[in-house]
């Protein structure tokens, strides 16, 4: 009955027998076929729901295909003791992954930079002057990583902030795009991201038509960038509609 | 094992009691006033013990549990030895071995005014009186007696201070004078200040006298009266033989 606590043996996850890697390069004429059958310009169906975590001041759950994220917002609450006085509020972001989020267990810890990227994307939208001396904590947990994780986290976080009643100039919607050979695909899934030649992510405040963050990786010509930005901005404003309606649903629901 | 004798309070006096023991049943007592000292608390209709030790009773109606500890729980009117750890504008912060530091207001001296605030170095040893001791507040000290006189309170210069237990301090302060002090006093002249918080300060003309007194007191903690006398005698015999 006493459980034997031997050191945990090394394990591996069984890999598929065959790995057919599609070779896509700039010169290839073959078009990329999206594994989930979407069109290049088609986003996955997005779903948001606020109030996923009762213990938090505000929270939201987002599901884009297999990408599933929960964001909790705590505060505004007392800043850490070591912090100096500040006449504007502080924003503290943290992104975590469940051990089972990724196909291979425990790979989510590779994305350490997500916390600071989330912070950068949100800080421009929050009216920090409204909560001096205090801190708002935005904590995200990726339940399942299905591609375009960061944009989903950012969009979900802004819905959670709105749910917590934190003053913002506008919602922040985020969309990313992958460049596969000569094809541009929007809202890529994990498989597409692993083959991508370049990527572009825009986070923006759609009503104000302002970009809070823009990151580009890989080689792009100016027309390509312009096209990708246009597509992402367009998708952002559509996404913002869905985000807004998820918030409206709660408000109108409680008035009944 | 299981039987629970109904015992009278008198039979518990001077006996060992442990936390949880019930020493008085108020419901069976007719309107009597009692005074509770340390180690006891009222729990509904009964008085129960919260510290292990000997139950003491003094006439007419005072009960307390006597025990010895390394830490001190401040209690009003106790005379203690404190060490200054910090000097603030209004208070000295003084360590008296309690759960929290004690405040000694800078005006709590005989004739204290804003103009003649005493200066103490951090580390200075003071003989002080506890004037306030409430849970959830830092205790407050004073360097005057109840009438505002300096009496014997204040800075202890020179000499040697050592830490003991609260039990030893109580023994040293008991009357009649405990054998160890009595016998030492016959042979040597020395000054002694005993704090109820388990600190003892000794001063004499020669360092050797201080060492003898301090040593004798430290040795006496677990000895009976007769043993104490023998111990002091042996100590002096030894010194005599070595100096001759």
């Amino acid at each position: 009955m006493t459980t034997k606590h031997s050191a945990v043996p090394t394990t591996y996850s069984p890999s598929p027998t065959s790995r057919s890697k599609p070779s896509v390069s700039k010169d290839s004429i073959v078009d990329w076929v999206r594994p989930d059958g979407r069109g290049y310009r088609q986003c996955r169906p997005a779903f948001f729901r606020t109030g996923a975590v009762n213990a938090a001041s505000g929270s939201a759950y987002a599901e884009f295909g297999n990408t599933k994220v929960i964001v909790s917002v705590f505060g505004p609450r007392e800043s850490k003791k070591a912090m100096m006085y500040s006449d504007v509020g502080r924003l503290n972001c943290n992104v975590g992954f469940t051990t089972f989020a990724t196909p291979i267990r425990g790979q989510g810890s590779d994305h350490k930079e997500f916390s600071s990227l989330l912070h950068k994307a949100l800080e421009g939208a929050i009216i920090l002057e409204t909560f001096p001396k205090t801190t708002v904590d935005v904590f995200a947990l990726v339940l399942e990583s299905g591609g375009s994780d960061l944009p989903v986290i950012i969009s979900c976080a802004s819905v959670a902030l709105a749910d917590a009643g934190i003053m913002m100039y506008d919602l922040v919607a985020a969309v990313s795009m992958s460049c596969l050979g000569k094809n541009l695909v929007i809202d890529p899934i994990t498989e597409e991201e692993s083959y991508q030649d370049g990527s572009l992510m825009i986070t923006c405040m759609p009503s104000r038509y302002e970009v809070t963050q823009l990151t580009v990786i890989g080689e792009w010509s100016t027309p390509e960038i312009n096209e990708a930005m246009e597509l992402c901005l367009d998708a952002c404003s559509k996404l913002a509609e869905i985000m807004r309606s998820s918030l409206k649903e709660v408000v109108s629901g409680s008035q009944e | 094992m299981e039987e629970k004798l109904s015992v009278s309070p008198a039979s518990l006096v001077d006996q060992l009691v442990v936390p949880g023991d019930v020493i008085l049943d108020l419901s069976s007592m007719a309107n009597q006033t009692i005074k509770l000292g340390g180690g006891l608390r009222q729990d509904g209709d009964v008085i129960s013990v919260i510290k292990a030790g000997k139950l003491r009773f003094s006439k007419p109606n005072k009960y307390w549990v006597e025990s010895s500890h390394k830490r001190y729980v401040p209690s009003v009117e106790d005379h203690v030895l404190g060490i200054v750890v910090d000097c603030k504008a209004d208070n000295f912060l003084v360590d008296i071995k309690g759960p929290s530091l004690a405040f000694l207001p800078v005006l709590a001296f005989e004739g204290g005014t804003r103009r003649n605030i005493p200066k103490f170095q951090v580390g200075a040893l003071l003989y002080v009186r506890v004037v306030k001791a409430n849970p959830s507040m830092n205790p407050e000290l004073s360097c005057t007696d109840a009438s505002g006189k300096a009496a014997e309170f204040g800075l202890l210069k020179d000499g040697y201070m050592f830490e003991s237990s609260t039990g030893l301090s109580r023994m040293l302060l008991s009357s009649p004078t405990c054998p160890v002090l009595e016998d030492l006093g016959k042979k040597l002249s020395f000054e002694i200040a005993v704090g109820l918080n388990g600190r003892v300060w000794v001063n004499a003309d020669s360092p050797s006298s201080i060492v003898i007194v301090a040593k004798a007191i430290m040795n006496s903690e677990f000895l009976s009266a007769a043993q104490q006398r023998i111990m002091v005698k042996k100590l002096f015999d030894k010194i005599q033989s070595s100096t001759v």
Partner: protein
Amino acid sequence: MGEMVREDGRTANQLRPLNCSRNILNRAHGSARWRQGDTEVLAAVYGPKAGTKKNENPEKACIEVIWKPQSGQIGKLEKEYEMIMKKTLQSICILTVNPNTTTSIVVQVVHDDGALLPCAVNAACAALVDAGIPMKHLAVAICCCLAESGYLILDPTKLEEQNMKSLAYLVFPNSTTSVCTEEASLVDGEPMEHGIITSVTHGVMLVDNYLHCLERGRAASAKLSDFLRKSLKSQLQSDS
């Protein structure tokens, strides 16, 4: 149930020889060593010190338990023991006397030969007494082991623990001396010391088996309380 012969020749209900000494560490504000056969635990109490840790109620005294295993680092098992000890000791200490203070209890395992957690609880309780921490009552802890057949033994050795199907660690209040009449001190028809402070079980057993453990545990706890009181007395007398 046939009589089972235990390796060390004890009967099923027999405890191993007990030994308790207090005030053994010079620096600690209270300390105790508790031995049950070859299982030995050292407990040291520091405090009360000013201030409580974050997330603790400052209106009460905070109890902190630090478990030091015989060797190696602490893992989940030790964390669990720390939590059980903390909650157990919290419930016997009076936390309102010294609000906004922290009392630390360091539990050092010297040797583990079964019934480690109960031994640690007993040691910590004796150390708290030594430090003069205000307490509602004392606590005595006991381990009961159940064999496949439903046969029950008390205070198992490590080997016995490993070979048995299930076990229960139980903590009871000590039996107290009272001036009240026996009936008056009953709590809803049961003496106070029959109430369970802490119960932790491992392994599957029948509910009836568990109740049986409680009964035997209670009988043993009376013996333990007597021992505790005697050991406190003998040491107190040597004090003064």
